[in-house]
């Protein structure tokens, strides 16, 4: 770690010049994004300072319970965010939160149980964050796709139900399609890792002075755990959504018209 080179607060402030450059470009091009850009930059800075301060306390004083508490908070927030993607599906937030929690528990639990990572807070929190983030994206995509499919494919689902098929079989083609949509980005990024972009974990370790052959070991673990987290979260949210969509008489619940326009 002797090569560790971290910018000072003065140098961080200097990097604001780049924000000013982007804001000037946006203003010059009349994109009406200058205000948003400045707010986003300030917000990101404030959020990261606050998170850094809290993590300092967690790492120094709370030990593993604090780290797992932090991961639990992340799961709660991620469940709400992913649940919003499926707004209109019954109990979407509950499904998303349960799926993200289960996926995180299994993935992080396996890494800890196998001794791949230690229980130190400075490892559990960032690794847990990556797992929760991957699970959140997968659950959100799966729920959004299910909501859209369920709305447009109601006649097809009901046609299968009318032939005496149970809800699970009637819904299966649409569930598969949603799962494929949710999993393909993680599979694609795994395929091209290192070729198109240097992934975050590896980049961070290299910046921190770790040699590349050591850094990739962590990155490989991260990629594999993200595949597991993504698959578990997508499958879990889809199965829970299916339970909420059909009643005991294998009837599809009525859904509100999907909102159109900007991705929420």
């Amino acid at each position, binding site marked *: 770690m002797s090569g560790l080179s971290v910018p000072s607060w003065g140098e961080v402030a200097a990097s604001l010049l780049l924000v000013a450059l982007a804001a000037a470009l946006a203003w010059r091009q009349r994109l009406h994004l200058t205000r948003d850009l400045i707010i986003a930059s300030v917000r990101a800075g404030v959020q990261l300072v606050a998170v850094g301060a809290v993590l300092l306390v967690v790492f120094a004083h709370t030990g593993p319970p604090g780290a797992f508490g932090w991961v639990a908070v992340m799961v709660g927030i991620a469940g709400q965010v992913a649940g919003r993607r499926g707004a209109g599906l019954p109990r979407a937030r509950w499904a998303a939160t349960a799926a993200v929690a289960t996926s995180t528990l299994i993935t992080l639990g396996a890494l800890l149980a196998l001794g791949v990572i230690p229980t130190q807070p400075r490892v559990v929190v960032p690794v847990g964050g990556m797992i929760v983030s991957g699970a959140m994206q997968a659950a959100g995509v799966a729920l959004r796709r299910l909501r859209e499919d369920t709305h447009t494919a109601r006649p097809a689902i009901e046609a299968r139900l009318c*032939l*005496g*098929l149970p809800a699970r079989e009637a819904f299966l083609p649409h569930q598969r399609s949603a799962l494929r949509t949710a999993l393909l980005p993680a599979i694609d990024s795994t395929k091209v890792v290192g070729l198109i972009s240097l992934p975050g974990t590896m980049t961070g370790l290299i910046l921190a002075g770790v040699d590349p052959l050591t850094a990739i070991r962590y990155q490989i673990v991260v990629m594999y755990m993200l595949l597991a987290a993504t698959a578990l979260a997508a499958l879990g949210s889809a199965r829970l959504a299916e339970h909420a969509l059909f009643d005991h*008489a294998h*009837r599809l619940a009525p859904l509100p018209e999907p909102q159109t326009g900007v991705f929420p």
Partner: protein
Amino acid sequence: MTGARGFLLDRVTVTHGPARLLDGVCVHLAAGRCTAVVGPSGAGKSTLLRLLNRLAEPSTGRILLDSVPLTELDVLVLRRRVGLIAQRPVLLTDRVADELRVGHPQLTGPRIRDLLQRVGLPTSLAERRTSELSGGEAQRVCVARALAVEPEVLLLDEPTSALDPVSASVIAGLARAHTADGRTVVLVSHDLTVVRGIADQVLVLDHGHLVATGHPDQTDYVQAR
């Protein structure tokens, strides 16, 4: 009316928010007969049909099939006994033969050819891609798909509204043949020529109320149009 075969609707009301889609409907749909449900748009005709295979549920009241409340029957068995054919054809697979196997995966080749003949389609259609079918062919394939599970009751929701005359006449013929075999047909239709041709009994719905029942020849709604 206990012991009666067929459907018995006992003070059936269906509400959706403040709207009453059906309001206190009491009627017997006799087994082995073709009952046509007629009335203006929004009268509750399709809702009534969906109640009979439990795609919808009454808010109050009850429905019996052969004197057994629908809620006491296995819903998956009920839906195989009571087949519903929707107004617009919905195809679920890529090939016609696969389409007929959706509800009956063990369906044999000869049975597929027999079903296609029953709906007036050439047997060579079995290997055709469903995306290549015309609207009339698609609707007839949907009817064959429903017949593949050998339902006792056929529910037809505006089955001829978007069809060419040949397809419409084939489906009307099938409904007649179904009742001739002692089985039951319940038909929703705006086409009163079809109703006069095949129905034994007419129910007239208006704003969710059952306003008349009787033979098509003696029902003002059918005769006046």
